[in-house]
């Protein structure tokens, strides 16, 4: 989704820069504060709502999740309609305020006007994309932005090249693009994988859900607000203190960060999608494993992009339509210096997304505020006076590095003070408090039995009593054999792997089994055997487990079986069966 959105933004900038010129690209950069404020409610409600919904789905509380979903949609529509009503009165004053020159004001006014009028469509699209993602339809979330961007970019070319619409055409193509993307609500409504539904609730109940949603979405909202304030201050300084020529160079740099976002944003998006669910399941091992992979990939990608920018800066300038030969050397230096921020930008983006997803908003908010305001603005001011536009570009990498260091230090201090009880930067329970066993098998009966043996061996090696160990082995065999027999019969299922994870935490054994077979909910399973043998494998698990839960997420069956270590089989059930 993020990749699709950023790809559109990058290409949009390239088209506008090349067809209308670098002054039009600068005008779009100057309009960013307005656009961020307009999209702010959609992002707060979309990100916050989806984090809460994802957490509820992780706990299997689908009705509560649906209520949050409904309240977010309704609130988003109402707020965007209020924005819409202000368009005729606010567009001209805003354009005048933001533009430093009459030429830029004339480019800004139509762009702002059309964007304000079209904000209800964009708000809905943004919110739905987040909810598609957490509600088993990530493909629709990505598709929405792909459709929106294809329509947007096609119309961009058509309207800018073949009509005199200019900046009206640029803004109109964006709005029409997102409106077309909304057509995906139809397949979502018909999707069998969908768990959320529109639970109509009273306005009062709607309002009751909002504080938690806003709280969870605040770091993201703060991000967009900070971006708005940051853009407002930086653009105003550059355009008014350094002039339109330097503003054009600066807009190439600010647009180039979208390329980094394009690469790392999609990877970091995995944190938001998967981490919330893993957090709800208390799968801390899964979180650690995911984070390690995401960070590694982000560092590799961001380093690669930095290298490209350092080696081919002229190519980047030309890509965004920058062709001022007199100032090209200065532009090249600016692009090179600015590109040094990408790795640290990715790391800050990760910290914000991660802390927000695990519902620890304070470090996420601190990172956002430091990155976009408290670090960047003062450093930019100082370097602007010292080195001009090159100093402005150098301020970004310096503030990104300082932000990472300060947030890590803040987290450590909070932990020492006991305000953040969990250990490490990931704020998870100590590794030593838990033990893990991770097995991935192919969906065959032989491998299912092997996994059962392996887990029993793991349990006995880790001091778990043989009775509990056998019950874990039994649960693995019953579920995995069932999956291998019935889960992969469908022709469309190509991959057939089963992930099995056993963790020991807080006096409980938690067995998580994930498979990509056909949907199967063991909690709803009823044995068809009528005669004396009434209890099949799944029923045996139901009898032995302290808790058995199931959810279908990301096209995978997720079965979680909990056993109390010291009281593995509910004795009352055994006694009742003996009496019968």
């Amino acid at each position: 989704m993020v990749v699709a959105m950023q790809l559109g933004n990058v290409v949009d900038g390239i088209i506008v820069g090349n067809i209308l010129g670098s002054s039009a690209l600068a005008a779009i950069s100057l309009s960013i504060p307005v656009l961020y404020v307009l999209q702010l409610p959609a992002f707060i409600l979309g990100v916050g709502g989806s984090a809460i919904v994802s957490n509820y789905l992780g706990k299997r509380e689908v009705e509560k999740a649906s209520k949050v979903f409904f309240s977010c949609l309704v609130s988003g529509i109402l707020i965007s309609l209020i924005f819409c009503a202000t368009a005729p009165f606010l567009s001209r004053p805003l354009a005048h305020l933001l533009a430093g020159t009459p030429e830029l004001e004339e480019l800004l006014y139509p762009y702002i006007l059309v964007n304000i009028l079209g904000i209800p469509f964009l708000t809905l699209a943004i919110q739905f994309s987040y909810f598609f993602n957490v509600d088993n339809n990530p493909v629709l979330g990505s598709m929405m932005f792909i459709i929106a961007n294809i329509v947007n970019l096609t119309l961009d070319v058509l309207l800018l090249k073949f009509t005199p619409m200019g900046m009206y055409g640029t803004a109109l193509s964006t709005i029409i693009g997102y409106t077309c993307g909304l057509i995906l609500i139809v397949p979502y409504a018909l999707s069998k994988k969908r768990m959320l539904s529109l639970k109509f609730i009273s306005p009062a109940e709607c309002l009751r859900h909002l504080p938690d949603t806003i709280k969870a979405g605040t770091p993201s909202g703060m991000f967009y607000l900070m971006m708005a304030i940051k853009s407002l201050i930086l653009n105003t300084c550059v355009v008014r203190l350094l002039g339109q020529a330097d503003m054009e160079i600066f807009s190439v740099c600010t647009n180039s960060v979208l390329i980094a976002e394009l690469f790392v944003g999609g990877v970091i998006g995995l944190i938001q999608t998967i981490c919330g669910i893993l957090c709800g399941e208390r799968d801390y091992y899964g979180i650690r494993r995911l984070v390690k992979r995401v960070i590694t990939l982000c560092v590799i990608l961001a380093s690669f992009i930095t290298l490209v920018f350092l080696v081919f800066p002229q190519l980047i300038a030309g890509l965004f339509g920058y062709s001022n030969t007199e100032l090209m050397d200065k532009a090249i230096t600016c692009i090179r210096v600015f590109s040094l921020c990408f790795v640290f930008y990715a790391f800050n983006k990760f910290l914000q997304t991660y802390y927000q997803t695990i519902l620890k908003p304070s470090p996420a908010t601190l990172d956002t505020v430091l990155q976009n305001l408290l670090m960047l603005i003062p450093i930019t001011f100082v370097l602007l006076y010292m080195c001009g536009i090159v100093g402005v570009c150098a301020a970004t990498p310096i503030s990104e590095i300082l932000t990472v260091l300060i947030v890590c230090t803040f987290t450590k201090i909070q932990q020492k003070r006991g305000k953040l009880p969990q250990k490490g930067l990931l704020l998870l329970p100590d590794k030593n408090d838990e033990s893990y066993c991770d097995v991935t098998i192919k969906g065959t009966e032989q491998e299912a039995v092997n996994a059962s043996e392996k887990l029993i061996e793991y349990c006995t090696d880790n001091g778990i009593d043989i009775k509990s160990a056998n019950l874990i082995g039994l649960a693995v065999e019953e579920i995995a054999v069932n999956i291998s027999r019935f889960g992969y019969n469908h022709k469309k299922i190509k991959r057939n792997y089963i992930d099995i994870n056993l963790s020991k935490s807080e006096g409980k054994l938690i067995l998580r089994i994930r498979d990509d077979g056909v949907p199967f909910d063991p909690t709803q399973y009823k044995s068809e055997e009528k005669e004396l043998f009434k209890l099949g494998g799944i029923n045996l698990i139901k009898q032995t487990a302290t808790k058995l839960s199931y959810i279908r997420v990301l096209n995978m069956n997720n079965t979680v079986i909990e056993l109390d270590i010291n009281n593995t089989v509910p004795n009352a059930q055994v006694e009742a069966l003996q009496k019968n």
Partner: protein
Amino acid sequence: MNIKTTKENNVTTITIDGRLDTMTSPELTEEINKLAPESNKIILDVSQLEYISSAGIRALVTAHKLMSEKDGFTVKAPNENVMEIIKLTGLTSVLDIVK
């Protein structure tokens, strides 16, 4: 799983150890099917059996049904863990279990 068989006066004793699971229970069922016609009674000694799954339970039920026309099928000396699974299935009143 290892299977050992002894026969005395048309009473066959089968001794198994290890695991009676999805992969091993067909072997036991096959052995019992082979021995049933020439035996009046089958005793399954499970004292060395460490683990049983629903597939193993099915093998026991199959044997019970097969021998019900004759002198029967007895499960001998299950350990605590195996007994617990048998209890959970509600088969303690159906199967002949001796200590």
